[in-house]
C-alpha cells in the first residue's frame, strides 16, 4: 500500500509540474506547425507570469491576473509576428530578443513598482487560484484504490491544471478536424500552396501566433498565481525551453507532446524524491543527471538515435511571395 500511495503522490506532483509544460508546448505547437520557430516561449511565459502577479496583487483577483497575463503574452506574440511575418526577420533572433527583453524588463518594472527587489507581493485569498475539490471527492476517498486516486490525484488541483488537461483534446481537435487547423498545418508544410488557394499566409501565421500567445499567457499565469504565490525573477527557469524540447520529443503532435511533457515532469518529480537516495545496483543517481535527462533524450531523438523527428517543412523560413 505504501508504494501505491507514494506513486499517487509522485503522479500528483507530476501533474503540477507538467501543467505549464503542456500549455507552453501546445502553444509552441501552433507556432511551429504554422512554420514560425518560437524560442521566445520562455519570454512570453515569464512576461505573463509577471503581469498576472502584478495585476492580481493590484486588483485582488486571480481572474484579472489571468487576463493581464494573456494580454501580455499576446502582445509579445504579436511583436514576434510583426518581426518575423511582416518584416521577415530572423525568427530565432526575434525569439531570443523577446526572451532577453522580458528577462530584464520584469525585474526592472517589479523593482520600480513594488520595491521588493524585483518580486511582487505574496498573493493570497482571491488573488490566487486555489485548489478545487471535485464533487464526491471526500465521499469516495475511502473506496480502495479508485476512490483514493480520485480524491488525491484527480481532485484537488487548481482550475488551470484542468484547463491544461482539456487543452490537449481541444488542440488536437482544432488542429486535425477544423478548417483553421488544416490551414495552419498546410502553411507550415507548404505556404506556396496555401497562397495559391487564395488564403493569406501572413494572416494565418498571425492567427497561429495569437493562439501561441494565448496559451503561453495561461501557462505564465499558472506559475505566478496558481502554482506559486507571486512573481520572482526568472521564475520560468528554462521551462519554455523544456517545453520546446517536449514539443520536439512529441514530434510536433498534440498527444505525443502531452506524454513527453508528462515524462519530463515525472523525471522532475522523481528527482526531488531520489535526492541522495541509495538505490540498489545503480547507487545514488546524481540529481544533475536527471535534470539533464530531458535535454539528452531530445538531442538523441533529433539525431535519429531514438525514433525520428520530422519538423514541419517550411519551419524557420519567412514566406516571400513570388512575383
Amino acid at each position, binding site marked *: 500500500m505504501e508504494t501505491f500511495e507514494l506513486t499517487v503522490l509522485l503522479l500528483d506532483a507530476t501533474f503540477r509540474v507538467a501543467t505549464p509544460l503542456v500549455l507552453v508546448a501546445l502553444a509552441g505547437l501552433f507556432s511551429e506547425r504554422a512554420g514560425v520557430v518560437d524560442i521566445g516561449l520562455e519570454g512570453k511565459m515569464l512576461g505573463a507570469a509577471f503581469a498576472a502577479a502584478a495585476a492580481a496583487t493590484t486588483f485582488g483577483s486571480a481572474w484579472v491576473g489571468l487576463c493581464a497575463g494573456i494580454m501580455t503574452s499576446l502582445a509579445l506574440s504579436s511583436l514576434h509576428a510583426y518581426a518575423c511575418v511582416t518584416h521577415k526577420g530572423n525568427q530565432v533572433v526575434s525569439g*531570443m530578443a523577446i526572451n532577453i527583453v522580458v528577462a*530584464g524588463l520584469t525585474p526592472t518594472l517589479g523593482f520600480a513598482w513594488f520595491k521588493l527587489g524585483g518580486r511582487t507581493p505574496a498573493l493570497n485569498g482571491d488573488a490566487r487560484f486555489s485548489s478545487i475539490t471535485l464533487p464526491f471527492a471526500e465521499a469516495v476517498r475511502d473506496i480502495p484504490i479508485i476512490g483514493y486516486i480520485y480524491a488525491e490525484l484527480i481532485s484537488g488541483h487548481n482550475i488551470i491544471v484542468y484547463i491544461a488537461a482539456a487543452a490537449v483534446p481541444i488542440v488536437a481537435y482544432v488542429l486535425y478536424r477544423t478548417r483553421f487547423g488544416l490551414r495552419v498545418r498546410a502553411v507550415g508544410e507548404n505556404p506556396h500552396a496555401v497562397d495559391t488557394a487564395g488564403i493569406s499566409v501572413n494572416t494565418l501565421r498571425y492567427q497561429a501566433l495569437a493562439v501561441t500567445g494565448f496559451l503561453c499567457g495561461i501557462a505564465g499565469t499558472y506559475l505566478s498565481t496558481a502554482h506559486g504565490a507571486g512573481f520572482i525573477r526568472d521564475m520560468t527557469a528554462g521551462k519554455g525551453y523544456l517545453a520546446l524540447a517536449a514539443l520536439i520529443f512529441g514530434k510536433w503532435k498534440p498527444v505525443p507532446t502531452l506524454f513527453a511533457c508528462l515524462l519530463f515532469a515525472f523525471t522532475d518529480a522523481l528527482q526531488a524524491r531520489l535526492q541522495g537516495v541509495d538505490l540498489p545496483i545503480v547507487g545514488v543517481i546524481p540529481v544533475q543527471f536527471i535534470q539533464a535527462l530531458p535535454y539528452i533524450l531530445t538531442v538523441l531523438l*533529433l539525431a535519429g538515435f531514438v525514433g525520428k523527428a520530422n519538423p514541419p517543412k517550411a519551419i524557420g523560413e519567412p514566406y516571400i511571395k513570388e512575383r
Partner: protein
Amino acid sequence: MAEAKAKFGAPAKVPAWVNLGLIPFINLLAAFFISGLVILIIGDNPLKALEVLIYGAFGYPEAIGYTLYYTTNFIFTGLAVAIAFHCGLFNIGAEGQAFISGLGVGLAALYLDFLPFWMVIPIAILAAALFGAIWAYVPGYLQAKRGSHVVITTIMFNFIAFSIMNYTLVEILISKEAGGSPETREFAENTWLALAPDFTGMADSPLNFSFIIALALSVAFYYFVWHTRWGYEIRVVGQNETAAKYAGISPARNIILAMTISGALAGFVAVNELLGVHHKVIMEFTGGFGFVGIAVALMGRNHPVGIFMAALLFGAIYQGGTELAFEMQSINKEMVIVIQGLIILFSGALEHMFRPKIESFFRRAATAKAVEA
C-alpha cells in the same frame, strides 16, 4: 531613366557608410529610445540615465578598464557567433561552450600548477579552446551528418553543460574552504593572467592580458575568413550549399569546422573570467555573454572591426549600467538586460523595418542625381 529601370530588383546600391554606419545607428537609436521610455515609465529621467551611463563607462581610467574587460568577453563570443554565421549556422550555444571551457581551464590550472607560468598558462588556454571546441563539435557533427538542427541542439547543450558543471563543482572539484558554495580552490598565482600595467591607471580594474588575446584573435579571424582557403570554403557553404557541393566543397566538413572554431572562440571567455579575474572555477561565470555575442555579431556585420565596435558598445552598456544601478534609485542592474534585448530586437529581428525605406531614399537620391547630369 531607362538605366534606372534596368536596375530594378538588383541589389541596392547604397553608399557603404549607409549600410555599415547609418542603418546600425538608426537601429541603435530606436533601441535607446524604447529604453528611454522604459526609464520614463519607472519614473526616472532618461537623459540623466544616459549621462550616468556614459560617465560610468568612460568617465575615469578604472571605468574604462572595466568597460574593456567586458568588451573582451563580447569580442570572444561575437567572433564565435560570427564564424558560425559565415557558415550559415546559428550558434546559440556559446554560453554553454564557454561554461564547459571553464572545466578545461580549471583542470589545467588546478592540476598542472607545478609548471612555470609560461607553460601552464598556454596549456590552460589551449584546454579552454579544446573543451569549447568539443562542446560545439557535437552539435556541428549532428547538424552535418544527422540533420538535427543546430539551434535546438545547442540550446539543449547549454542545459546539459550547466548540469555537467553543476555536478563537477558540487560533487568533485568543490573546495572545503568555500563553505559549501560550489567553487574550486583558488588557482596558484603562477596561473593568473597579468592585469593592466600601472601607468594606464586601470590596474585596479579586472582588465587583463585576455584583451590582447582578443585583439590578436580578431586579426586572425579576419585573415582566416577572408584570406585562407578554409575561410573561403566556409563562406561558400554559408552562402549557397548547392554551389559549394558543385564546386567540390564538402558542406558537412565545413559545418563541423565552423562550429568547432566557434566553440573554441567562445571558450576564451573562460580564460578572461577564470584565469584573468576569479582565479577559481565558479558557477555561472558566463553571465549571459554567450547570448549577447549574438547581438555583437549581428551589429558588427560578422566583421572583426564591426565586432570590436559592437563589443565596445555592449561593454560600455554593461559597465555603465552597473554604475546606473548605484547612482539612480529606481533603476536596478537588470535595466542593462533590457537595453541589450532591445538592441538585439532592432538590429537583428527588426533589421528589415527601417532598411528598405532608407535604401530606397538613397536610391532615389542617386537616380535623381544621374538624371540631372
